[in-house]
């Protein structure tokens, strides 16, 4: 039990990129993970087991200790404060959180509304700006909200800006830049310290190299 490392990760692109980093760091992962519908994937040669979870849920698995390590976006870490160690910036899936709205947006005095998947981050941001707004939580397709009149503005993830443009929205302010982070459960961080420190160091070296390349 003390030897195997369990890693929770979002499905899809982030998993591919993170697995790639691990391979470059010398972990013996299979070239391709065949069945994409599986939720638990084993890499016995590397002594690693992966859970594939929803991005928002990764810190939950890690905080409860069912996964030793997780790969989670900074956006999720900001929204869902969990008691886990955030040890390494993996510098993958770079993007940022921004405020956006229709081009003809004019501030109104009557209860301005902001739709977001990140109600906590949005609340905190507008509080800092000294602006009174009401937050409406949505779970996806946030761009729809200003188009149909649910909210005046949105707070959402922007990577290329393509989705905003396609829907006729413009970006107004950047809130914070986001990358994926390596997070660690506090108990695993002590009980499996040798293996985890080794993984962090090897990954850090790869990231450093890629950054300067």
């Amino acid at each position: 039990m003390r030897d195997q490392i369990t890693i929770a990760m979002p499905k899809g692109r982030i998993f591919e990129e993170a697995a790639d980093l691990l391979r470059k760091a010398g972990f013996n992962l299979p070239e391709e993970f065949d069945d994409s519908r599986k939720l638990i994937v084993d890499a016995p040669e590397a002594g690693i087991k992966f859970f594939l979870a929803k991005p928002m849920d990764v810190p939950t698995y890690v905080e409860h200790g069912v996964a030793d390590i997780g790969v989670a976006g900074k956006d999720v870490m900001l929204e869902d404060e969990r008691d886990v160690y955030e040890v390494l910036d993996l510098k993958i899936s770079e993007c940022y959180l921004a405020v956006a709205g229709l081009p003809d947006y004019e501030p109104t005095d009557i209860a301005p509304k902001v739709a977001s998947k990140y109600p906590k981050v949005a609340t905190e941001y507008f509080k800092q700006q000294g602006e009174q707004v009401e937050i409406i939580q949505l779970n996806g397709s946030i761009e729809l909200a200003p188009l149909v009149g649910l909210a005046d503005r949105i707070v959402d993830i922007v990577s290329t800006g393509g989705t905003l443009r396609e829907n006729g929205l413009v970006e107004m302010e950047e809130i914070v830049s986001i990358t994926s982070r390596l997070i660690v459960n506090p108990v695993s961080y002590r009980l499996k310290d040798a293996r985890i420190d080794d993984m962090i160091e090897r990954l850090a070296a790869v990231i450093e190299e890629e950054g300067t390349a």
Partner: protein
Amino acid sequence: MSQPFMFEKPIGMRDTLPALYGTKRSLRERMEEKVEKWGYRPIKTPSLEFYDTIGNASAILDQQLFKLLDQEGNTLVLRPDMTAPIARVASSSLKEEPLPLRLSYHTPLFRAQQREGGRPAEFEQLGVELVGDKSASADGEVIALMAETLHAAGLKDFQIAVGHIGYVNALLKDIVGSEDRAGVLRRYLYEKNYVGYKQHVKSLPLSSIDKDRLLGLLKLRGGRAKLDDARALVNNGEAAKALEDLEELYEVLETFEVTPYLSFDLNLVMHMEYYTGIVFEGYGSKLGFPLSSGGRYDELLAKFNRPAQATGFGVRMDLLTEAIGETEENRRQTLVLFSKERRKEALADAKALRAEGQVVVLQDMTGVEDVDRLTEQFEEVRSFIGRSPKEDTRDA
């Protein structure tokens, strides 16, 4: 009137059913026996305390306190931790008693409105406080006793991480100068946000040597050799004192034979603000949350007008029970089933069995609807039903 809530309980509240109750009691008894043998005397304090005294001193976040008003309008809190109440008692009711005081407790604590499962709002904690002893032997005793109680509870695989608040403070202050700027860095450590810590360090107007020293703090995790690494980073008055404390503690724990469970972790910064020196946490291999924690709080008692150095630990009994993972089997029970003609005989039988130490349920036949369902729960059933054989012969 609205329907009473049958199944729901307030958020974070749990029922303890008999099987679990038995397990928890046996854990607790084994642990309390150790604590008592080390000379710690148990005390109990009220569940309700004044917000202004205990609420403020406890360093549990305000929004985690259960608050209510008494008839005079004072704000009360349900006890969120036991260290502050013991400090209060040590400085008031026990103020004539000579120091050091060794006190222990096993009590429910209340922390409100946790957002999800696995975090009860009421949980039991077992712990000790050693008040008025500033020696490294006192720190060692408390950690060794914690290890012994965890052992007695049946936890086989555990680890204790030890840090020192004084060292972290000295290092940060030595490099960044002001308390304010050290505070920012300490907050990153406390939030376990090492990425943020590293980014902040990079942004500071410092020499690269100083930046490396700040980053070096994150690597001070491991065996005794890490204390030498720590000394290389900073060795001014306060830091040297902290490292000396840790060296001495290590020696004490060697004597107690606890070092196999020990690792140093100099960036361990605890939630409780009142800690001033050595701090520690205990971890079990089967659970993702720390099971126990403690440390030195040399300034808390001064708030209650009896300045005294103190140290202590607390074990979360709910988490420990989970980490051990097995519930004990119920004790074997015997059923004595009777009808009223033979009540006297049944009573005598039950009494004799109980005197032998057996658990005996005495049940009147007419009080049960489904006798078969009842009897199948028992390993042995003794019946005293109908007329007694003796009477039969007499009648004949």
